[in-house]
Structure formats: C-alpha cells, structure tokens
C-alpha cells in the first residue's frame, strides 16, 4: 500500500505525533567538537586534582605528568569549544556576563579560570619559575578541576533533551568517573615511561580503576534506570557506542589489574633486593590500559551526544514521557496541557 499522510501512521499508534517529526530541535552541537571538548575538559579537571594531591604527597613525576595533562586538556578543550562556536571572539563573548541560570555561562567562566590555573601550574613546573605561585595555582585547580569534570552533566541536563535532562543525576557521575579513569590512565602511562617513576604511578592506577568502576556503574544505571529516556543509551548508534565504551573500559581496567599485580610483584622483588625497574611489558601494559580507558571515556562522550540526538529526534521520547509522568500541577483540572 501507499504511504498515507496520516500523522498517526508515521509514528505508530501509541505515540501520536506530527508526521513523526521531532517535537524538539535536534541539537546543533557537532561531532567531534562537543565530545572532544567534554573529554578533554574532564581529563583536565581530574588531572588537575590528581596533580594537586600528587604534589601534596610528594610525587613530583606524577604531579608533573598530571599538570601537563591538565594543561593540555584545557588547551585542547578550549580549542574544540572555539571551533564549535566558529570564532574565538564568540568564546570571549560569553564572558561579558556571568549568568547563574546558564550552565554554559558558568562553564565558560570555570573553563577560563581553570585553564589559567592549570597553565600557570604546568608552566611553573616545566620552567621551574615562580614555583610558589605555580604550586598555589595547582592547589586552586584542585578545586576547579572536579567541577570542570562534572559540570558538563549539568550543561547537557539543563536542556529539553530527554536523554540528557532525565539523566541529570547520573551524568555528573558518569563524567566524573570517566574523567577519573582518563586522568588516572594518562598519569599511569606517563609515569610508566619515566625512569624510576613507576612507583609513583600506583595511585594513578588506582584512580583509573576507581574511575572505570564509577563510569561503568553510572553508565549502567542510566541505561537501565531511566526508563524510556534510557533507551537511547541501549539502542541504536548511541547504544553501540555505549557498549563500546563499556568494553574498552572493562578491557582497560583488566589491563590495569594485570599491571597492578605485576608491579606489586615487582615491588616485592625490589624489596628482596633485586633490581626493580619497569619492564617493557609493564610499560606496554600501562600504555594499553591508558589507551583503552581513554578510548572508553571518549566513546562515552560520543555515546551521550548521540543518545541526546536520538531522544530529541524521535518524538516518542517527549510525548510518551510527558504523557506517563504529567507534571503535578497546582490546578489539575484546568491544565491546558493535560
């Protein structure tokens, strides 16, 4: 038979819609700009925190590695953001006001401040100048860092996009976890390649494993506890990316565990007096672990963007959700929307 121009037909019976057309505008945010920005921002935020704690606990190699990752992440992230906006002055335009109701405004200020801090910390560390200031900046970045890593959860959730808005509890943890995993993994890999830096890498490894666990838990929670809005995290394009992210994270964590066992036996050997140096395979494993976890974290960001797009594009996520959970209203009989 022919396709009839019946709106009901287009979207199935239970979710009526206008020719199956989206109710919402599908986000104009693009790939890879937005996922890359979120990934790098997360890396920078968690790395800054890692760097500060590492510095406190006197792990200079780890601290430097994390400071560099934080600075690099901030720089790269800002780059992608500017690319998304089209022109650098458009980023500066955001700094003309500070608007508490706009997570993007808050985020822009946060990114600006945080970038300054981590650049100062990394710069001072590398050049060896202004050490006091550098250290103070590094310590301050430990405060901006966690927020920078988690605010994207608010940035995305504070929209009408069902898969994002409904996940406002989970997204910050998802982003926190994957930022920790990425920062830990990058710290691990960086220290593994340094002469006698390996022992400093152990907290990084643990951070990576903790992050992976949090990321996986938050991810699974979103997939299964959000009801209809969680569907895009399981199905389609975005579902596939989500699964890829899980696989990579799991594999990365596996590599990390192997790595951890190995380094433990290494340390045992060192204690018994034998030469405790990193072996080629432990460096390789660390790199692999970092790559897998980083890849997982990146996939997560792509998955989240695509899930948002899918949920905005298909009107059922708006219509069915709003029909199932009508907003309680002061005056229920009158509500035009019901």
């Amino acid at each position, binding site marked *: *038979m*022919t*396709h*009839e*121009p019946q709106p009901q037909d287009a979207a199935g019976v239970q979710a009526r819609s206008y020719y199956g057309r989206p109710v919402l505008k599908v986000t104009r945010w693009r790939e890879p700009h937005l996922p890359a920005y979120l990934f790098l921002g997360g890396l920078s935020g968690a790395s800054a925190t890692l760097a500060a704690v590492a510095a406190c606990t006197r792990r200079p190699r780890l601290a430097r590695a994390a400071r560099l990752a934080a600075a690099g992440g901030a720089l790269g992230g800002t780059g992608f953001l500017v690319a998304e906006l089209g022109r650098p002055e458009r980023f500066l335009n955001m700094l003309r006001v500070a608007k508490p109701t706009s997570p993007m405004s808050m985020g822009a200020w946060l990114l600006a401040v945080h970038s300054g801090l981590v650049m100062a910390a990394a710069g001072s560390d590398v050049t060896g100048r202004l050490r006091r200031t550098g250290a103070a900046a590094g310590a301050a970045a430990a405060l901006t860092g966690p927020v920078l890593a988690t605010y994207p959860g608010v940035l995305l959730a504070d929209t009408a996009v069902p898969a994002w808005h409904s996940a406002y509890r989970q997204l910050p943890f998802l982003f926190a976890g994957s930022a920790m995993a990425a920062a830990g993994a990058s710290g691990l890999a960086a220290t593994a390649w340094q002469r006698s830096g390996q022992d400093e890498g152990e907290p990084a490894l643990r951070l990576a494993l903790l992050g992976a666990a949090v990321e996986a838990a938050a991810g699974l929670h979103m997939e299964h506890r959000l009801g209809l809005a969680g569907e895009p995290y399981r199905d389609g394009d975005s579902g596939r990316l989500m699964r890829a992210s899980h696989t990579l994270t799991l594999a990365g964590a596996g590599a990390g565990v192997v790595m951890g066992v190995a380094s433990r036996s290494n340390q045992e050997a060192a204690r018994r007096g034998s030469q405790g140096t990193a072996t080629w395979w432990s460096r390789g494993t660390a790199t692999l672990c970092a790559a897998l976890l980083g890849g997982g974290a990146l996939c997560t960001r792509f998955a989240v963007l695509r899930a948002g797009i899918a949920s905005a594009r298909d009107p059922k996520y708006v219509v069915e959700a709003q029909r199932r959970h009508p907003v309680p209203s002061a005056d229920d009989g009158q509500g035009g929307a019901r």
Partner: protein
Amino acid sequence: MNADCIVIAGSNMAECHPVAFQWVTEAKRRGATVIHVDPRFTRTSALASKYVPVRAGSDIVFLGALVNHVLSGGHEFRDYVTAYTNAADMLPDEFTDTEDGGGVFSGYDPHTRTYDNSSWQPTGERDLTLTHPRCVFQVLKRHFARYTPDLVERACGIEPRDFAAIADAVVANSGRERTTAWVYAVGWTQHTTGVQHIRTAAILQLLLGNMGRPGGGILALRGHASIQGSTDIPTLFHLLPGYLPMPAADDADLNGYLTRLPDTGFWGNKRAYMVSLLKAWFGDAATTGNDFCFDRLPRITGEHGTYRTVLDMIDGKVKGYFLMGQNPAVGSAGARLQRLAMANLDWLVVRDLTLIESATFWRDGPEIATGELATEQIATEVFFLPAASHVEKDGTFTNTQRMLQWHHKALDPPGDARSELWFMYHLGKKIRARLAGSGITEDAVLDLTWDYPEVGEHADPDASAVLREINGTGPDGRALDGFAQLAADGSTACGCWIYSGCYGGGENQTARRVPWQQQSWVAPQWGWAWPANRRILYNRASADPAGKPWSEKKAYVWWDAEAGSWTGHDVPDFERSKPPGFSPEPGASGPMALGGSDPFIMMHDGKGALFVPSGLVDGPLPAHYEPAESPVGNAVYKQGASPVSELYPEHKMTRDQLAPGPSEPAGLVYPYVLTTYRLTEHHTAGGMSRTLSRLAELQPEMFCEVSPALAAARGLENGGWATIVSARAAIEARVLVTRRIRPLRLPGEGVIHQVGLPYHWGGNGLVTGDSANDLLPFALDPNVFIQESKVATCDIRPGRRPRGAALDVLVAKYRHSAGLPDLPDNRPGGGVS
C-alpha cells in the same frame, strides 16, 4: 454574515477568497450552518459544519433535486413566489420540455445545434393560483420531478442521508424569519452547463424567498482582484460598459440597436445610458445629427471569444495579439493550442510584471522540448513590455460585492514599467498623431475624446479624471450624482451608467474608508457599490408586497407611508416614492411600467425569472447534461452531453479532441474524472506567485491529489511521481495521497475516482512544473463561452512522464487505444489525419 445557513458549492471559498471567508467564520460563530459541496474536501470543508462530496459536473442534478424537494414538499415561500416571480406566467402549448423531448426542449435543431426559442415565450396570461398545468410553477414542478434523492445518488454520488441533511438545513433556514445564502465561483461556471448551474440555484433561491434579503442571495465570488470591474467595464467581446450589448453587424443605427434591450423596467432608460456613453467617448463629435457617432463603434459578426480567436490565430486569420495581464500558455484550457496559436502570429505584445510563459514559449515551451515547434521556425515577433503592478498606480478595484475601492499608488514602478492606462493612452495619442496627418477626417479614433490631464515625469494620465468621466458629467461639466440624472438628448456624458455616482458630489466616493465602528452595519461609507451605492440588489424584495419587512429580524428596506418613500438600512433598490400599491398604466414604458411590488427592476416585468424565455441559448430551464468528457452516461436523459455546448467540431485542431464516452466500443481508456482548481498559496497561472519565494516555497511542486483507493489501484505513492494522460496531453505531478478525495459510489455505475490538479504551474519562475491546462479540451458553455476546466477524463499512472518526442508517443498510444486519430499538428502541411 447575516445568513442562517450558507451553502458553498462550486467554490473553495476559504482558499480562494480567504478575506471574504472571514465573514463565513463570523456567521458560523453566530450560529449559522455552513455546508460545503465539492469534489474535494478542502480548507473550506475543514471549516464547514458539513461537507458533502460530489462528482464534478453533476450539480444540476443535486440542485434540481433540492428544487424538487421544495416543490414537492410545499416548502416554497408561497407569498414571495406568487408576488415576486414569474411562476404565474402561462406557457404556450407549443412548449415542450426535456421530459418529452428526450432531453432537449422544443425548438432544437440538431444540425445547427441551436435552439429557436419562439415556443418558449409566455402567452401573457398569468395564473395566480399557480395551478394551471401550463403555468411556469407547474411546468417547473414537472420538470424537476425526476430529480430525486435517488437520482442524486446515482448521478452525483451523494448519499441520500447527506442530501436529506442539506435539504432540511436549507428549508429550515429559509422563509420569513431566516435566510440561506448560496456561494459559488468557478466550480460551477467552468462547465459546458455553467450558466445553468447558477440558474438552478437562482430558481431555488427564488422559491425559498432568499433573493434581495439580508443573509440571502447567490454570491458569485469573482476572480482576479477586479474581474468584476472588467465585466462592468468589460474586456468581453460582446459587451459595452454597463452591460449594454456590443453592436452587431446588422445593427444599422442607434434606434435599431436599442430594440435589443427591453422597453420596460430600468432597461427602459437604455437610450439615456447609450447616448451618454457615446457622449463620453466622442464628446462634441457626437450629435443628434450623426446618431451620436453610433456608426463609429465596431461591430461583431458572431462569436469572438478567446478560444475562437485562438483557432483563428491557428488559421492565420489573426495576425497580432495583445496580452495584457493574461498568461494563456499556462492559464487557458488546451494550453498546447494556445501556444501553437501564438507561434503562428506576426506579432505578439506581452505586457506583464514578469517574463511569463506566454512571453517565452517560443524559446522554452513544452512543444520545443517535444520537437513539435522549433524556435527558428517561429516567425512571431514578441514584444515584452514591463507593466506596473496595482501598488504602483492609482485606480479602483471592483470587488465581488460590486464595490469600487480606490487604491493609491504606493511607489513608482521600476524602470520602464508603466501602467495600462499610460500605455493605452499614449498608444492612442501616437496613433492619433499619425492619423492626424493622414488626411482622414471621418475617423473614429480622431473623434474620440482623448485628453486626460497628465501628471508626473512620465506623463501618466490622471486616473481620477478617468473615474470622473466614467461617473459622468452634466451639461455644466459637473459630476453627476447618479444614473437617474442621465439624459437621452446628449446633454449628459457617462462612461458607464451603472457606475454613475461613484464620483457623486464631485468627490471620489470610492476612496472612502470610514471604519465600520463609525457607521451602520451595512457600512455604506466604505468604498462605493454600484448601482447607487446599494449593497444588496433587488432589496425591495426584503419587504412584502405591502412594503412591510417580511419579518422584523430580516428587516432591510421598507415603505414609510408617512414620508411617502422607501427607506431602510440600505439604499432602496426602487424608485423612492413609488408606493407599494402602484400599478402601471397599460402601455407604460421604462420604470413606470413596473408596479409597486415588482422588485426585480432590471427585468422587463419586474419579476424574478423561474423560467427564462429569452437570453439563454441552452434552454429556458436547467437540465442536467454530462460534461463534454465523462466516464458515465446521463442518468436523467437520453441526451448525454449538452446539445448546444461549443466544441468547435468543425476545426481540424478540435475535431477529435474529446475522449470517447462510456458507451463507445473502445471502453474507458481515460477512466478517471479530473478536476482543476486553485491553492491559496498560488495565483492562477502563477506569474505572480511562482516568481515570489515567499509563496513559491509554500507549494513548491505541481502535484495531484488522489484517494488512497485510487493510489492503491494504480500503484501511486505519496510523495512519488505520477503521469496524468488525457486525450490531449500527458503531464507529470507529484502525488499527494489523501482521504480528502473520496471515491464516489454511483449505484449502477460503480466507483468513480476523481483526480485533483491545481493549475498554477508552468515552466518559468522559482518553482516550475507541468501545466494542468495542457490536458484540457476546448469545450465551452454556449452562453458565455467559458471553458469547461472543472471536469474532463484522464488516466493516471505511476512515474514521471517521458521526455522529448517520447511524450507525444505516449499520448498517441492512448489515443489509438481509444480509437482516436493522431493529434493534428500545425506545421505547414502538417499531419492532419
């Protein structure tokens, strides 16, 4: 707005007259029932209380059945009918009806396909009891007796309960207290039986007493912004301004000519109208001595309508052609013939806003693509002259309500664009200048008054001076206040008698714009309506014979005995001081021949005509005939299609133009009914809408509308392509599958499918597409020569049409299976088979 029931049939009012339609929505808000009868469920149907689908071309059956319903049920407004219509007139014995004549009236000559109407003339007796078998009322009753709900179902596809609902609504909303209005436009007129559609509605409205009363009447929705104006001051071959007939070759002098109009009623003043017109045109040259230059007027020798002229062009009889605001290459039926005709001219002048298809057909028309024409071989010299649009010039529009509204120029026309007024005036001046030196003294052109004040840098004639001339002037040169002041002795001049008064008091009455809040509900101070600023014609009929309103609720004008004059909300359409009881002297002429209760003052007897003894060439009563092309036979009479429609069977290009009917041996090669129409988003042939992005984007592609059932049967997909083939051409269109088009079940005939085609597309502009008019034949109503563009037959198939010469092959294949010869072409020595 004051109607209790509004039946819209033969018009898509909401889409084509959205601004007027606001009053329908307003009436509905006030409780009126709105009914829409149309082959398609349209935006009008969407807002109607009830929609009823109908087979295109079958409305006379539907309306006739309503007439029958009224007559057989005794629902007529008896007092009104007896007093105000010609129901009581007696017909002669010689008159025979279609019932007896197998579908034709007495006087028919099958060889000439014409009627001699002498047997239709009333005897002069009247039977006020309306019971005599030969009185009009009884003839009417018998004539429509066979138009039953059952017939309606068989011919129109209207289900009996739908018909009953309409009949009940119309009857319930007519009479003393209530009125029903009928609204039509070209869905009724563009048929070979166009005039008789409106006749049937008129009979119904007269029987129900709905004429001349508020909320009643028959509203003809006119087309182009001033198409009403262009019939009042006509661009028609057979009329002069104010509906005076065009002199014919055998009109020897003014006196002889004037006998063509009635002596009684308001036409009785015909000499004053005509002489004043001649004075307006010829000024001092028009004198009693020279019959007011009557012999200067051109004469017609027969039919010179558009389609006849096109055939004459094909025959090489017409050498040059002015197209001023018309786009026949897209907008006229049989568009291929229109283009072939223009390709056969010596010269063609196109004045338009944009380069329309009629100006470029020689370069990129469909016949160039198929190879039928080649640019190098077209000898027509085409002049394109840019025209100023209505916002770029002063002037009036005359709208559907006969109201003249002045529009002020808002900006200068761009570049070389000039108004029509400028063009005709300066063309006239140039011609006069040439003739002036030629030694010709007795020349119609030189005798013309041709002296408007010129204003502005381009010497534009002053439009208000033209309006003043149309209004008319007295011997002192002062503007007249109305046509009552017109004189037959040459002392007054008037360019159009019905417009007299539009410049009354020396002021441009058409420019008045008093807000409605500041005047009565009839709003007499908004613009100016002809005649005499009267908003409802024949409004004397809103009062009973004694001059009292039929009801308080519907009071409109009435007799004020104390003042001794007619008065009311509107300007009474009656001589102010003629009392209701007035009875004319025997032998009186002019208005004085009409009684005080004869409201239809333009009729010779002052009565509404249920039966029309003269003036119509296709019969005194409406009878249903099938369209020229139809997939079904006539369910009422043996006679299938109209016996007198104009089909040009003698011309080689039109001889075999029609698809065979259902009874032909070839069977139905073109089994579906096609109908053409407009969309809100576009305007007519598209020159003013396909060229504008704002409009073009709203309906970007030519499409056809089909029902899901037809789509399924023919494998058409929503959004896909279809090719529509008629006996004349094949075009392609995107497909809209919609339940708004309903297949009609005709008991005895099976299911009839209709295909809807908007006719706005052509090859130029921002959005382009094939023209529906390529598909249509030259088939005309014989009274007014309007083409039957609302119905023809076609086949529809999935996919795009062939390109190039293969297109003609497809059309030829279909014609062969239908038993038709190849299409004749117009190449020198071309293959006429």
